[in-house]
């Protein structure tokens, strides 16, 4: 059985697989805490379409919303990307680095 957390990773990868959603994250990276109206501008898409994309990003925990007065502000949450990095990327790059170090040791021993 797959560990439960892999579902979280699935949602992150799926959310990131779409260029519009990456664009929305980039806009929040430039300036965080934006309203739907702000995020809509610059996208040739209906308000409903943008809301759907934001929903996917929220489900993946890549966007967190906060109410401030009557406004709903969207914040970029980088933690899931960090988790993917720490659990996946690091794991593989470490192995590559270790392989190179091992190779170096081996060659130097032979020399």
């Amino acid at each position, binding site marked *: 059985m797959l560990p439960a957390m892999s579902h979280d990773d699935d949602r992150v990868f799926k959310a990131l697989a779409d260029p519009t959603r990456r664009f929305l994250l980039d806009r929040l990276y430039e300036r*965080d805490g934006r309203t739907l109206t702000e995020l809509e501008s610059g996208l040739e898409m209906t308000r409903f379409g943008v809301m759907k994309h934001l929903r996917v990003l929220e489900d993946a*925990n890549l966007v*967190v919303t*906060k109410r401030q007065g009557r406004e709903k502000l969207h914040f970029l949450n*980088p933690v899931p990307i960090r988790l993917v990095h*720490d659990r996946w990327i690091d794991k593989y790059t470490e192995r590559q680095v270790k392989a190179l170090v091992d190779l170096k040791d081996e060659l130097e021993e032979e020399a």
Partner: protein
Amino acid sequence: MSTDTMVTTQVYRVYIKATPQAIWDAITKPEWTDRYGYGGTAEWEPELKPGAKYRGLTSDAMKAAGAQMGRTVPDVAVDGEVIEADPPNRLVHTWRMAMDEEMAAEGYTRLTYEIAESKGGVTKLTVTHELEGAPKLAVLLSGGLEEMGAGGGWSWVLSDLKSLLETGSAMDPDDGLNQG
């Protein structure tokens, strides 16, 4: 416009398979705070109520990292005081980076932990850091100084906390802090 003031706020959220109490303890108990992220022992006045003082002491790793950069690292890394405490669900306190002169000069910021039970034994932890008037600290906390060996900020801390509470051990304890 009201949204302009919010730009300086950073929001982080992580889901952890642990009880709210375990997460509360990891934030407020010195035997836990030393085991993830930047490490260092947190000292809270015994009764967590408004006005209670808080100090985060520098860890050996921080001192070593500072020494490598040719700097003397003071004993107190961060300080502040409790604004609101509702264990194990909500903790609001002021927070100042005391170990760096320039960041210390930016003054106190406001930090809110919200801990809410979610489904299936998972707890949702939301960290909201209001960083008005603290641009240098904001860069550090968003992980902008990681390449310099200053740790990866909140995402790094929360990823590590999740690892600690779910697996019993943090990631490489020195990972992220300067190793020369």
